[in-house]
Structure formats: C-alpha cells, structure tokens
C-alpha cells in the first residue's frame, strides 16, 4: 500500500467527514431533525432504498435529517489518524476504513442537500441527473446480471481535450459500459466537455451526469448497492455480501482524469471497498497487488505516455487498458466476415474447379501456430497481413501461408496452447467457401472463388480466429492478435520456429505422466444416455472417444467450472501398478449412481473402466491365445472373438463394468500404461488392420520401448485371421510372445 495514497485518502476522508458534520449540524438548526430526505433524479424518479449506500452497508434507514446523526458519528469512528512522518505501516485496513467513512460522509452531504432542496444540481443552465431512480436501476440491473452490460465507469474530472472526452465515452459505450460523470478537475468537468461537443447525456444514452462535486460520485455506489440488494438477494446491512457481489458481478471502475486531490483519493478508497479499481491518467502511485479488487487496485496511466499516434488513439488504448484491468470480457455477436458463417458450412468441400487459392497440402507450405504471450505484448484485435494478399494471387494457385495467433490472458497457461490451436480447424471451417484440414505444419486450406467474390481476404482468417477465440475461450483468453504471413521466405523461417515448438510440445506431452500429476479429470458428457458411466481421463490415457485428452479436460474445466469435466483428485494411492486410487474410486462411485465401486486405470481384468458407447476401439480377451484383441470402430469385419465391433460395443457399452472387455481410445494402445497389469502391448494378438496402418509409427515406438521391436509383424489382423481357431496357429508360426506369458485368466 502506498503511504502517499493512504495519507491523502485519510486526509480527504477527515475533511469529508468534517464537512458532512458541519453541513448536517447547520441544516439541523435551520430545518430541524424532521426535515424529510428522499433521493430523486431530475425527473422526480425516486427510490425505496433510502440513502442506498448507508441503507445497504449499515442497514440504517434515512428518511429525515435526524436519521443522519448516527451515520456521521459512525463515519467519525471509522476515521484513522493520518500516518505519521516516520512510521511506515501496511495502511490497507486504515485506508479502506477511511474510504468507507468517506462514502457515508458523501451520502450524508448529498442527503442534506436534498433536504435543503439543492439537489439534483443545476449549474449554468445544465440540469444534472442526480441519483438513479429505482425504475432505471431495475432496467440496468437486469442488464448487469444477464451480462448485456458489464458494469460502469465512474469518470471523475475532465479529459485532456474535448476530442479525447468524446472518444473515451464512445469507446466505453461500444463495450456496453455505463458511464457516470461527476466532479471536475481545476474547474472543468467531462460534463462540460461533452456538452460543448453536443453529446447527449441521460439514461437513454447510458451517460449519466451526477453532479459537479466529487461527493456526487456516491450515486454510482448507490446504484451498485441497489443492484446487490435487488439482484444479489442480499439483505440490507449485510455489507460483506454487498461488497463481494459488486467485486465479482459488477465490472465497474473509477477513471480519474486530471489531477487527483485528497478528496478523490478518499473516494477512490471508498470505491476499492466495492472491488472497483481506480485508474488515473496522471502520475500517481500504483497499488498493484490484488486482493480487495479482483486485479490491480490503483493503476496510473499518464495520458501522454500511452503509446499511440495521436490523442485519439491514446484515448482508445486508455479505455482498452481499463477494460482489461477490470477483467471485462468482450463478446462479439457475429463473426465479422463477408459471406456467411455457421456450423452448416463445416463439412464443406472446395473442389479444384472452384478454387481461388490454396495453402498447404501436397508440396505446399502452411502452418498454424498459437502462442501465449505477455499481456503487454499482445494487442487485442490487431490483425495484420504480412506479404501479398488474396487479390494478387493467381486463381487456383498454391501459396505459402503462416497463421500466427498470439494470445494472452490472466488464466491462460502454456499447456493450453495446443488445446486452443487445435480448435482453429473447427473455427475456420465455419466460414462459407472455406475448407480447412490438418493442423500444425500439415495445415491445408482451400478458399472458394465465391468467397473471394464476396470480399473474403486473408485478414478475415484473423477476424474469424479473433472472434471465436474470445467467444469460445473467453474464460482463459483476454487478448488475441493474429498475423498472417504470405511471404515465402518469412513463412519458411517462422515454420521452422514453429516446428521447434511443436517438438517441445510433443516432449512435454510424453513427459506428462500419470505419476507427475495429482489430479485426473472426469467426463460425464455421455451420462444423458449412459447414466452410470464416468470416464476418468489421465495424462497417459485419452478419453475412450478419443476426443478428450487430460489437457483438453483441464482447459474445459477452466472454461466451464460447472461442466462435464471435473477434477478428480487422485487421493491416497491404493495400488499404483493397477492404477487404483481412493480419489478416483470415490468420484466414480458418487457419479455412477453408486453403481461402480472400484475402478482401475491400467487393468483389463480387474475392475476395468466402463464404456458409454462412444469408444474408438473395443478390447476383448481371447483366452485361447492368452492375449487380447482390439477392433476399431471403422473396422466392419469379423474378429476372432466371433463378434464384430458393433456387437462387442453393445456388450461393453452403457456403463457396465465387464472384466475382460473394455472400450478405449486409439492412442491408448501406444501408451506406457496400456493394460500394464496384464503385461502391456505384448498381450496384443489381433488388431484391426486400419489401426495397424494408422498408428504404425506410434505402435512401432511402443513395441521398441517394451523390448519387442518385431512385435507388429506377429500380431494378426482381419486380412490374416478372422476366427479364434486360426489365431493360435498364426501366433505360433510367428512366435508371438503372448503364448509364453503367464495365463491371462
């Protein structure tokens, strides 16, 4: 906590409380204690919440002057002494108390003014709004709760110029932020500036001029208090919940333009109590550690130091930064591209004859690379095309392309890079006349002539990614910047860099073992049709549908904490080699309608995982061969078990635990944890031919790792063996290791 701020705020609070006391005593003498007080806006719209801050935080109803006496006494009791010159303390508690005292003093001052008929204020022929009426508070409160309106910006003081004032207001409006105006700096206020520029102010334009005094800032907190009382279901007097409600639900902040005096520091301290941070466009000390507010408490952004080619750009950045610091997420309703966008276009194929341009594919060069960066190094919404654009390509030509997406976010993690990157496929395919295949450096993109005719250019790839990243992953991504490279040299250079990163990611994935983590994740997505089935997904075993890895689940949980992927703490290890954990057993029992009591992660024979019905493969024991067979979903042929995939799946599906049979994902076969209890890959005696081909590389690696480099040649498939009678003969001929292993049953 800055001692400077603490000192100024406490001084400001003392003067505010003294002024309130004086005003009140004077009014009591002149008007008597029974003089009524009722907040009303300029149109006469009132409130049933008395003086809302006092009512909300203290549960005290003020209806007449006399009711304010205990309020001022309470404010006095909160006032801490001004820090001494030579004693340095943390000050946070004192400053917040001073802030609270200031709020009570401010509301008292405005209350007295109402009693005296001086409010809402009129100055130079301009009628200020005064406090917000209940009717308006309800309409805005609903928008706050349903997310149409993130919160409000309470602007104190005046902007550098009229031009800047208008720009700031427009930028805030474009983000749906309400704007409250109060106070001046050196005699000038934003209200004056907007008036001079002919900007309409009022409820309709979401710009509310409260008053010319800093004390009128209390109306902003009054609104915040009413929102918590009405929509948070909080009772008057429950100050803790009112403050927390606003911290987490009302994305408001204070923007102090121009010099900050003691009284403004005091008001700022009051706002921080509500979790509303304070940003200033002048040099003031920062209070960066988070705590009372969600992120930083006080941030100074000297206007002229903000990067930008002119004041307007600086104003835009200032608002952008405020929004970021308060943690406001933007939602973009429509993907801003020419032509249609939607799931209907996902399966679209662009044929050679219709081709405008092609990136990647055979002999081409195209990659996509999403990387996490520092907050300050990413400029949200910036989309840049480096190199020639679509209009300069020959029709149907193959052009190199590098898509680099830089993201940052307070909740972003390096591990989420591949998770988000893989979603680019799905995002880009939504565009009409656009087809996307592959990923990383085997990306293959085709664009239809019709899309180009409608005006599609390379930058729209950036627009799609920027919009979808925010809309789909707003919970972890705060800023997205996209650069599209089409200069062959540059693409080549960046692709090499990206390849290094892909390699690092692969290494990270293979280093990500079950032992290295203390939490697995669940997936209960399929309980709609398999009520008793729970997937437990660990780093070394992908979900049985093949769609969810442990990392995907972790990201999914960050994005939707109430969703189908919940953390499953391993808890006490019951048997590490079986993969049996107390935490897993408990989770599965609780979430399988108490049907499955034990669950091992690495065994086929002892309490294996259940299957919903979405599995990529089914594994089944073949006792005659002392091993197991695996058939994939794409294999329609007969297997040595005497059943096809469909029949096997019907047997294991539906959440039943069936020792000796199990559904699983394709890549599990190459995992170190592949039925390790039964002996691992050496037990594999029959495998669908298409899987052998598809996973050739991974399987070969796994065989070598297990010390059986020639195993793949010894495993039968549908082209060599389709009955159980043929199988032992085949295996004996090949000298399959399963035949000499311990009996599997």
């Amino acid at each position, binding site marked *: 906590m800055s001692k400077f701020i603490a000192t100024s705020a406490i001084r400001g609070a003392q003067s505010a409380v003294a002024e309130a006391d004086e005003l009140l005593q004077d009014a009591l003498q002149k008007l008597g204690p029974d003089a009524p007080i009722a907040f009303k806006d300029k149109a006469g719209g009132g409130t049933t919440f008395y003086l809302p801050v006092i009512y909300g935080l203290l549960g005290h109803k003020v209806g007449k002057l006399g009711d304010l006496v205990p309020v001022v006494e309470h404010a006095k009791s909160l006032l801490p002494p001004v820090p001494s010159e030579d004693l340095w303390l943390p000050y946070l508690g004192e400053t917040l108390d001073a802030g609270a005292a200031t709020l009570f003093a401010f509301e008292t001052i405005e209350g007295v003014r109402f009693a005296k008929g001086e409010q809402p204020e009129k100055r130079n022929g301009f009628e200020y709004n005064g406090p917000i009426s209940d009717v308006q508070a309800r309409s805005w409160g609903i928008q706050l*709760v*349903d*997310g149409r309106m993130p919160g409000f910006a309470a602007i104190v003081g005046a902007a550098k110029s009229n031009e800047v004032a208008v720009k700031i207001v427009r930028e805030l409006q474009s983000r749906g932020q309400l704007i409250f105006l109060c106070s001046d700096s050196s005699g000038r206020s934003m209200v004056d500036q907007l008036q001079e520029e002919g900007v309409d102010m009022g409820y309709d334009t979401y710009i509310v001029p409260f008053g010319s005094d800093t004390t009128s800032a209390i109306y902003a907190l009054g609104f915040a208090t009413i929102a918590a009382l*009405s*929509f948070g*279901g909080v009772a008057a007097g429950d100050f803790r919940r009112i403050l927390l409600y606003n911290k987490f639900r009302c994305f408001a902040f204070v923007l102090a333009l121009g010099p900050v005096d003691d009284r403004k520091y005091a008001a700022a301290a009051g706002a921080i109590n509500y979790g509303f941070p304070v940003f200033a466009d002048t040099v003031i000390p920062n209070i960066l550690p988070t705590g009372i507010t969600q992120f930083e408490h006080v941030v100074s952004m000297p206007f002229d130091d903000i990067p930008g080619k002119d004041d307007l750009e600086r104003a835009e950045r200032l608002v952008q930064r405020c929004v970021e610091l308060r943690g406001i997420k933007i939602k973009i309703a429509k993907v801003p591209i020419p032509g249609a966008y939607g799931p209907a276009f996902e399966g679209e194929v662009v044929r050679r004859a219709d081709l405008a341009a092609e990136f990647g594919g055979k002999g081409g060069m195209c990659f996509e690379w999403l990387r996490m960066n520092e907050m300050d190094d990413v400029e949200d919404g910036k989309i840049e095309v480096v190199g020639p654009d679509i209009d300069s390509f020959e029709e149907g030509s193959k052009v190199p392309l590098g898509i680099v997406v830089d993201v940052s976010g307070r909740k972003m993690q390096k591990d989420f890079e591949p998770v988000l990157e893989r979603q680019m496929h799905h995002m880009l395919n939504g565009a009409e006349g656009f087809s996307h295949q592959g990923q990383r450096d085997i990306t293959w993109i085709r664009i239809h002539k019709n899309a180009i005719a409608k005006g599609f250019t390379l930058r729209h790839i950036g627009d799609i990614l920027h919009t979808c990243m925010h809309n789909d992953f707003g919970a972890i991504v705060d800023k997205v910047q996209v650069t599209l490279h089409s200069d062959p040299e540059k693409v080549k250079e960046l692709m090499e860099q990206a390849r290094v990163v892909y390699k690092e990611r692969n290494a990270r994935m293979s280093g990500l073992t079950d032992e290295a983590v203390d939490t697995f994740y669940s997936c209960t*997505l399929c309980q*709609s049709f398999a009520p008793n089935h729970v997937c437990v997904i660990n780093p070394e075993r992908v979900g049985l549908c093949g769609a969810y890895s442990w990392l995907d689940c972790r990201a999914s949980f960050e994005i939707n904490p109430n969703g189908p992927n919940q953390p499953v703490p391993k808890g006490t290890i019951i048997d590490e080699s079986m993969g049996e954990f107390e935490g897993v057993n408990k989770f599965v029992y609780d979430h399988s309608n108490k049907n499955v009591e034990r669950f091992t992660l690495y065994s086929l024979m002892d309490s294996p995982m259940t299957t919903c019905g979405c599995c990529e493969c089914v594994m089944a024991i073949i006792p005659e061969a002392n091993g197991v067979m695996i058939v994939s979903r794409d294999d329609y042929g007969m297997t040595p078990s005497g059943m096809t995939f469909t029949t096997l799946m019907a047997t294991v599906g539906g959440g039943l635990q069936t020792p000796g049979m199990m559904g699983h994902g394709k890549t599990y076969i190459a995992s170190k944890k592949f039925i390790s209890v039964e002996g691992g890959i050496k037990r594999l005696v029959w495998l669908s031919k298409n899987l052998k081909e598809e996973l050739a590389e991974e399987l070969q690696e796994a065989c070598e790792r297990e010390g059986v480099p020639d195993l793949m040649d010894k495993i039968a498939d549908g082209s060599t063996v389709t009955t159980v009678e043929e199988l032992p003969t085949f295996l004996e001929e090949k000298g399959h290791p399963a035949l000499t292993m311990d009996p599997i049953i």
Partner: protein
Amino acid sequence: MPEVEIPIEKWTGAVKEVKLGGGGRKEVVVGGETTLPFLTFEGSIPNPPKVAIEVYDKEPSGWPSPLLSAWGDAVKDPGTWAKKAVEFGADIICLKLLSAHPEGGDTGAAEAKAVVDKVLSAVDIPLIVIGPGVAEKDNEVLTAASEAARGQRVALGNCEEKNYRTIAAVCISDGHVAIAKTPLDINLCKQLNIMLSDIGVPLDSTIMDPDTGALGYGIEYGYSINERLRLAGLGGDAMTTLPIINHAGSEVWRQKEAKTGEGVPATWGDHEERSVVWEAVTASTVINAGCDIVVMCHPKAVERIKATIDKLMGK
C-alpha cells in the same frame, strides 16, 4: 402366512419445498418429499403432486375438437379461461405467452403485463408464466410479467442453458420462482441448477423442468429422467433436490392420437375418450416418477389425475 418385512430405504436427502402464491393469493407448496413417489411407508410426502392447467394469452388456433368442446368460448379470454380452470380443479394456472412468439403475433411487454394482470385478478390461485421459447422475447415478456406479479410469487420460465440470466435476475429481484428447463439430461439439469444458484436464485425458489415426451413419444425418457433426478436428490445430491414440473398435457395434444378424430382405424375408439386417456396416462406416468407439478389441458384428464393422486395418497 409368514410375516414379510417390507424393506425400507433410508434416504439422506429431501426434495426442497417451494412455495408459490402469497401476497393475498392462495399459497401452494410443492416438493418436500423424503422418499420416492407415493411410498408413504418409507418417508413423508407433505405435498402431493399438484395439477396446473394451461391457459394461453390468445385464443388457440387449430385446437383438437375434444379440447375445444371441453372449454367452449372460455378460450376466447384468458381471464374467463383461468376462472373455468379453477372450476375444473386446477391448483395452479399455467399461463403461456404464445402470442409473444415472433411468428405468433410478436406481442411485447405491454401485452404481457396486461394479460398477467388480467389472469391474476381473475383467479386467486398461483400462477406459472411461460414465455414463447425465443430467448429475446422470453426476456422481454417475462420481465414485464415479473413486474406485474411482484409480491405474488409466481413461477417464471423457461430458464435454459443458453438464456437464463435475465429471467433469473427478475426472479431474484421480484421474489419469484425460476423454472429451469433442460432437454432430458440429468447433468445438464444439474448444471443449470448450479448456474442459477451461482447467480443468486435461492434453491427454494427454483423448479426444474427436465422435459418429457408423451405416451408413445418418448415417455420412457421422461419417466427415467424424473426417476434419476429423484434417486440422485434423495441420495444426497442437493443440486437435484428441486421440485419437478412436467408439461404432460401439451406433449400429448401435439400427437396424432390425441389430435385426430377422423381417418383413423375404428379400433382407436372414441376420439375424446382416447385423447383423455392418453393425457391421463402420460400425466400419471410422470407423477409416478417424481413429478411435483403436472401441467395439463383437458378437464376430464385433470379429473382422473386428481382422483389418481388422491387414491395413491390413500385418501
């Protein structure tokens, strides 16, 4: 005969009690059961299932003849309709704001407020108000309905996964009950309950509509989802212990067995009797699986269901 001991299940959870009405209006409490439906020997069922009758905000078009002849001219006016529903034994009125649908009249807040006012003043039993099912319109008309009914604790729906915040906000603000609707999926149902509770709707102010199908049109899904919710809730999962509402009537009356009187095999029997039975069987199925409020259409089906409930409760 040897003595047979009836096995008694010991449940740890109980369904939340949710109160509708008040503020001068009759109160109806639903939920509160500590056992599966009608197993009175095992736990307590303080509030037997209630019957709500559907009333629309406009005269229905293309309604099947058995419904039209049962209600007569009453359907021309929501107030008269609601009064007649009370005569036919409704515990609750379920007012559907169909005319707010963009393709059904596209009426707005003012019309919604007017019709809610009208029905509220016509009858003294609690009200459920259901929007047209289009997010934007739901938010508009239910906000108006909420304001009109402030202090009389109505139920407003439907909150859905993609659109629940506005409805939830007005429920909190005006002290109403939110109806959380999900498509036959226990996890989505639970998730929506959690989301509503997260934004501040108290659990005793939420009712869940896990959806159902009519007899012959997926009623087994409806039965199963109710049953699973009850088993989970009674088993101790607090987020599934809310009362259940099922729109059995409207599900039945959009199927051909209820709608069609002509050009069907003679073995289908009398049109009215067949459709009434269809609705009654659908309704009795869902209440046997855990439904607390069954929303119905035909007065004769209502009569049978009320008799069934009484019998099952041992009255």
